[in-house]
């Protein structure tokens, strides 16, 4: 006989599975989404990577390899934050209403949705990692484990950010516009495309407050052994960022209107 608490936990896990399952099935059926969103990072990797790589930069490694961690982060940033627009779709097509009228808490709905966004990001990163192998990047068991952990933490935090925006913004157009203002600085100021060791003070400061900086740095630590900060510090800051974003996201979902 299960105690009430175990029973409730079982129900909540079932609800999370349900919400994740729905996102995953939709993701699998919309393959064009995966292809389209993997295309941009690859374009950067090959065009900017090879283009700037031909100019003999002093960065201690091949430029294409140098930006590879940054490109992984780029794909996570774009996919995760824009995933927030799906909550607007759900509202538009009343799917959200049918979820809200079920006895699941808003926190569960939020986490379930975030897990869906995380899965999307993970798939995309997997594709980029495979292409990385063709570029001469080597992984071992530890670095793969580290990469997956970093991607999971970052995408959880950024999907939360996207869903927070989605819970406040009513139109898809508005969402695209506002989120662009967030996504591009997150990416460009993360040091994804340049080393952050010798930056002018003002730029250095901005990279320090950009959470994506620490994911780029963590990935560089584990893939290229080239980080600016220690891997542990990177992970700690990322976890803190993701925790804060999750709490803000849950709060936003709780106050979101059901109808």
């Amino acid at each position, binding site marked *: 006989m299960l105690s009430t608490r175990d029973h409730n936990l*079982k*129900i909540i896990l*079932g*609800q999370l*599975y*349900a*919400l994740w*399952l*729905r996102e995953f*099935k*939709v993701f699998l*059926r*919309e393959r064009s989404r995966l292809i389209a969103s993997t295309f941009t990072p690859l374009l950067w990797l090959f065009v900017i990577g090879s283009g700037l790589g031909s100019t003999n930069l002093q960065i201690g490694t091949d430029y294409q390899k140098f930006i590879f961690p940054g490109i992984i982060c780029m794909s996570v940033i774009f996919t995760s934050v824009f995933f927030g627009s799906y909550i607007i779709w759900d509202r538009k*097509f*009343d*799917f959200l*209403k*049918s*979820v*809200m*009228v*079920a*006895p*699941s*808490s808003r926190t569960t709905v939020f986490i379930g949705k975030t897990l869906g966004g995380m899965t999307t990001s993970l798939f995309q990163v997997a594709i980029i990692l495979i292409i990385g192998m063709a570029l001469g990047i080597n992984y071992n068991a530890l670095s793969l484990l580290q990469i997956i952990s970093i991607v999971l933490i970052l995408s959880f935090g950024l999907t939360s950010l996207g869903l927070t925006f989605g819970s406040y913004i009513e139109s898809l157009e508005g969402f695209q516009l506002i989120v662009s203002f967030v996504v591009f600085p997150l990416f460009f100021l993360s040091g994804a495309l340049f080393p952050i060791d010798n930056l002018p003070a003002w730029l250095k400061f901005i990279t320090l407050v950009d959470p994506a900086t620490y994911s780029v740095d963590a990935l560089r630590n584990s893939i290229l052994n080239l980080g600016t900060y220690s891997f542990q510090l990177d992970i700690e800051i990322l976890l803190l960022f993701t925790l804060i974003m999750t709490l803000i996201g849950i709060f936003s979902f709780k106050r979101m209107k*059901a*109808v």
Partner: protein
Amino acid sequence: MIIIENLVKKYGDFYALNGLSFEVNENEIFGLLGPNGAGKTTLIHILATLLKPTEGGAIVNGFDVLHDATKVRGSIGVVFQAPSSDDMLTGYENLKVHALLYGIPRKIRERRISEVLKLVGLEERKNDQVKKYSGGMRRRLEIARGLLHHPRVFFLDEPTLGLDPQSRNTMWTYIKKIVREEKVTIILTTHYMEEADMLCDRIGFISNGKIIALDSPSRLKQEIGGDIVKITFTNGIHSAKDFTHFEFVHRVEQNENSVIIYMDEVNSNLHRLIKDLEDVQSIEYKKPTLNDVFLKFSGDSLSGDSPEGGFMQRYAEYKRS
């Protein structure tokens, strides 16, 4: 089963619900009738805990909608006005997702899903994506979904809106079947009078956020005062005389060139009514419908504008024709 007390819902200065109170009994089909914008959907949303009332409260299946929202949600099923299934998923997958959301144990989940699919006649299409379903099939899937967890109370918000007459008939058949097989209390909103007349045990007319009449369809029709006779004159109303002195006439409505007379026993009284009339163009006679009841109770409030429009015009046209 449902107790509604003095519900008020205000949007700015606009009262969507204006002090609504009534009760719904166990195992009845209760119809909420009224024009668009009368507050029907707002009421359903409050009872389903999706909206908070400005004032007042409601008890659904013994749980307070304000303080026991989760328990209310666990004991009700809702079919919204617009289909809300994910059309990228199959019918079966939609049901599975919702079975999990309602915490239906694995042991009975599959059996229950087949049961509801069978109930609404969708077993053969269960593995098709919902985007391949017709409008009527989508509605039926919503009904199946709403019934998955054996709710005690089932809300149907405009279940036949936008369906063709044939699909509407099918829908009615299924609704009657549900009552028989699932033993639920049903609250149904509609603005189709014949739908309410056919399905409902009791009907509440709602207009401008208030209940203006509440009873069984047959008693509501009695209340209107017998049969309806409409006399149209060639030269306008000036040639009409006063009908109210007849003891069998209950009420007379005067229009531009016609009069509508509510009276007892048309068969035996008509000859007295029209005995000395001149310039008569036509005489029509009919038994009262819920339409007439609604018109009587809502009176002049019908001439006001409703936010969604459409319904008022149809009534105005009906009244004129």
